[in-house]
């Protein structure tokens, strides 16, 4: 049975339909393996071959991969959460209660989303420090470092805008405190705050703006920058795996 299933799968891979979608088949040879990466729009961002040393845990601690992992988890949990969320006052809070008490697995999704968000901030910071300490920011990777800093900012903004959405005391006051920081910016401070909040206080407008930023603008920007970041890894010579002492 298992054999025939495997055969059937193998046969499936040989069909025209399969080939038309995946272009290359799976196969035991390095050619197949190379094609699998090359001909996939996502995997294509990385190179076909990778330095063996850079795969060692010691080198990167996989912090970049993990950061991407949290981002994917956040997207995967965030979209279902949007189905039970209205960005309006005070309905947003009631929706939190519904997620907690009425929606099947709603509380799990929210927990996972929330904890992953914290994990992402932590991992991105860790990634930054790790990259710094192993010297991977140095030329020719200096621009990718800058993109990394931009991604750090995006991560912080994503986390921060998401913070307001539950519309509870924690959210409201964290955003009140945080947004008042903006008004400390010389000259334009209060103007920027006015624009960000869509008003003079944290209110329904602010909630809607944060919602749009959190669900559309920032994830899109992050996705684009992540793509550039990955592409630049390849272009800048692969994952930096340290200098090798001469044998």
């Amino acid at each position: 049975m298992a054999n025939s299933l495997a055969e059937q799968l193998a046969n499936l891979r040989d069909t025209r339909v399969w080939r038309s979608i995946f272009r290359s088949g799976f196969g035991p040879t390095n050619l197949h393996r190379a094609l699998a990466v090359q001909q996939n729009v996502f995997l294509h961002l990385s190179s076909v071959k990778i330095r063996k040393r850079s795969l060692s845990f010691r080198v990167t601690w996989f912090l970049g991969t993990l950061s991407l992992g949290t981002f994917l988890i956040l997207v995967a949990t965030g979209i279902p959460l949007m189905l039970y969320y209205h960005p309006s006052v005070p309905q947003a809070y009631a929706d939190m209660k519904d997620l907690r008490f009425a929606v099947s697995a709603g509380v799990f999704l929210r927990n996972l989303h929330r904890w992953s968000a914290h994990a992402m901030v932590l991992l991105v910071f860790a990634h930054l420090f790790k990259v710094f300490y192993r010297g991977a920011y140095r030329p020719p990777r200096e621009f990718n470092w800058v993109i990394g800093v931009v991604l750090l900012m995006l991560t912080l903004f994503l986390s921060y805008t998401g913070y307001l959405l539950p519309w509870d005391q924690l959210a409201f006051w964290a955003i009140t405190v945080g947004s008042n920081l903006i008004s400390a910016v010389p000259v334009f401070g209060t103007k920027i705050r006015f624009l960000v909040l869509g008003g003079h206080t944290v209110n329904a407008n602010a909630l809607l703006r944060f919602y749009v930023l959190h669900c559309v603008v920032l994830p899109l920007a992050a996705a684009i920058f992540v793509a550039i970041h990955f592409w630049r890894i390849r272009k800048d010579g692969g994952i930096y795996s340290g200098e090798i002492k001469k044998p």
Partner: protein
Amino acid sequence: MSEPKDFVAAMDSNSRKTPVRVAFVTRRTSPHVKAHDDDTVMTFPEGLFRAAVAVEVLALILVAIALLWDAPLEGLADPTVTPNPAKAPWYFLGLQELLHYFPPVVAGVLIPTLVILGLIVIPYFKINIEAEGLWTRNRTQRLRILAVVTAVFAVFLAVFHVYAVLIPTLLIAASMFFSARSTPSPGRFQVWLASKPLSFWIMSWFLVQAAILTLIGTFFRGPGWSLVMPWSGQI
């Protein structure tokens, strides 16, 4: 960039020819080989499996956490009642802690902007590219500069009573002085420290500082932003 170039590189028009990496040895770089290409493996499946394993470990941990602990949710937002203490998200608590000491323009704008700018310009610093030890050149002069900077900084922080920053700063400065010490048979730790460039020291100082301030803001601040112990149950 304005210096005259020592070489000219041109694109080869032969598209069938495999591109080869070429190293240009200029006047400003030494000719010895620092690194050479390593063994490579296929990204698929080896690299991807490893990435998948890493992400799965992460997912396992996060799912377990999500199953066991509920995300915090407090009462409905009430603009008339400020909870005491009102805290920002944890990653901003270091900033909030600074705000406790400095005026908003300094702590809320100047410092974050400087940090971001600093992070961005790091790779463009010549000194980092060289990656040589801080004390390898101009040792006395650099020591003098370090002493002055440390002193100015210490006075500044002491005036604002920012001991949470002052003490770690002094400790880092002390270890810098320690690494600069010329001892006949330096220990391995000292050798390791001495090999570190200035950027390492600045980044370490930033990391330690951010960690300490965030920890204080998260765990040691209670009602009215007063100093409390985490086990007192007031946070």
